[in-house]
């Protein structure tokens, strides 16, 4: 990770018509850094990610990427995994991954080989020809991740990519993904509901408050890299997850 700031979110407020989705978000992400966004459901995490990805224009404030203001999608620099995955159900797993390269103008032969390699990386090398409706929820999520990894973009925006998995698989796959991303030097903004996942994978964690989202705190994770599963038994890890859960439950005034 370098000290250079790659993504800079400045006083960003987001809304859908009259619905305010986020207020005055400000945070930075350094090149090669892994930053997680956590917060209660509906607080605006996905909206914040869409703003970084250029899919949602801020009402006020600006998002900077590599020094210039983001005004729309930047396929060469950012790849995106949507919360609902947005796989194309009429395309096989392999062709879903290929489509990213097709839109990027890569030749047919090269994209077949690269897409196959990306599927192998996420452990789906054996089922390239299955259609999304023939894959389990977790396998679909991995196809979506492969589709994002196959491009050369240096920034990866991941919206709850492991939501369909059980805690063990989620942490195991998260760890594998982390190794992969470290090798490729990718910058990651990662939305999750799982506190242990955020703690295990991230360099920093942005904790958001309830609707409309404001940033409550940005926490640096005190664990060294590379991460190892045994670190989840370290006292620092438990202190961190305790702290996160108390931050999140602070506002929880019970069912209203």
């Amino acid at each position: 990770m370098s000290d250079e700031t790659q993504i800079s979110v400045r006083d960003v407020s987001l809304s859908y018509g009259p619905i305010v989705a986020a207020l005055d978000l400000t945070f930075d992400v350094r090149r090669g850094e892994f930053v997680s966004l956590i917060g209660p459901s509906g607080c605006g995490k996905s909206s914040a990610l869409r703003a970084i990805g250029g899919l949602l224009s801020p009402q006020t404030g600006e998002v900077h990427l590599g020094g210039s203001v983001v005004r729309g999608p930047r396929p060469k620099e950012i790849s995106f995994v949507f919360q609902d995955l947005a796989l194309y159900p009429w395309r096989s797993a392999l062709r879903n991954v290929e489509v990213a390269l097709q839109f990027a103008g890569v030749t047919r032969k090269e994209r077949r080989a690269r897409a196959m390699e990306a599927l192998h990386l996420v452990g789906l090398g054996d089922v390239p020809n299955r259609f999304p409706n023939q894959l389990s929820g977790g396998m679909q999520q991995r196809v979506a991740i492969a589709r994002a990894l196959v491009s050369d973009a240096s920034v990866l925006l991941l919206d709850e990519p492991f939501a369909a998995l059980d805690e063990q698989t989620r942490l195991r796959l998260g760890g594998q993904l982390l190794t992969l991303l470290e090798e490729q030097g990718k910058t990651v903004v990662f939305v999750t509901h799982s506190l242990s996942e955020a703690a295990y994978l991230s360099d920093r964690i942005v904790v958001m408050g309830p609707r409309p989202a404001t940033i409550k705190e940005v926490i640096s994770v005190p664990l060294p890299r590379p991460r190892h599963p045994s670190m989840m038994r370290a006292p620092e890890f438990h202190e961190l997850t305790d702290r996160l859960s108390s931050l999140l439950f602070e506002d929880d005034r019970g069912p209203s």
Partner: protein
Amino acid sequence: MSATTERVTAARSGRNTRKTLARQAIALRSATIAAAVVAWELVARGPMRHNDFLAAPSKVVTDGLSFVLQPDTLLALWQTTFRFLIAFLIVAVAGSALGLVMGRLHRHIFLGARDVVTVLYALPMVPFYPLFVLWAGLGTRSEIAFGVIHGMIPVILMTMSASAQVEPNLISSGETMGASRFQRLLFIIVPSVLPDIVSALKIGAALTLLGVLLAELMISINGVGSFITNQITNHQAAWLNAIVLVVCLGAVVINTGLGWIERRASRWRT
């Protein structure tokens, strides 16, 4: 006997039961159709034997078949088929293209356009046919135009509704991967509405044929419709029924073909 052989035998007998069931289903369906034909034969030979416009199936086949194979009849059938094919080609290309684009217009323009098309769909077109004849002249052109107008409107309506409802995130994901506007239309919107377009074309085909036949029945000098009018005036029940059967047969062929394409196109939908 080992466990494996037992399983294999069980699987094989399961397959056999399925085959038997399928055979029974086909037998039952054919028997139902046969019963209907027999009933028709009995009614036509019994209580309705003095009716000029109902011929027994046996008579339709014996008299009618040779009639259908006469050069005049074949020519009329060809004229109608040709008009239908041209009209349907226009419906399929222009109707689905218009629908696709109209569905992607600004939300409120789309809703307004949909109102207009819905009203046109509800409107009976028959009273306007004389106008078509005045515009396009008597003959093939006005008949094709009448077929087109009948088939086109439901195709536009169904296609535009489907294209307006394409999952927004599928399109956003295309944008994040760098798809141009044209690529999004071709690789995201078209495939995601293709099953709806084929279903629309199935309805469109039936209505296009209806439009062409209506035009021929009303004001026309040739084609199946005008032939039917002639057989009614000549009291030729067997011939009339024979040509009606041929039209039905044609409709069934078109419908089966499009149904097959429809199933293939929507395989990925769950």
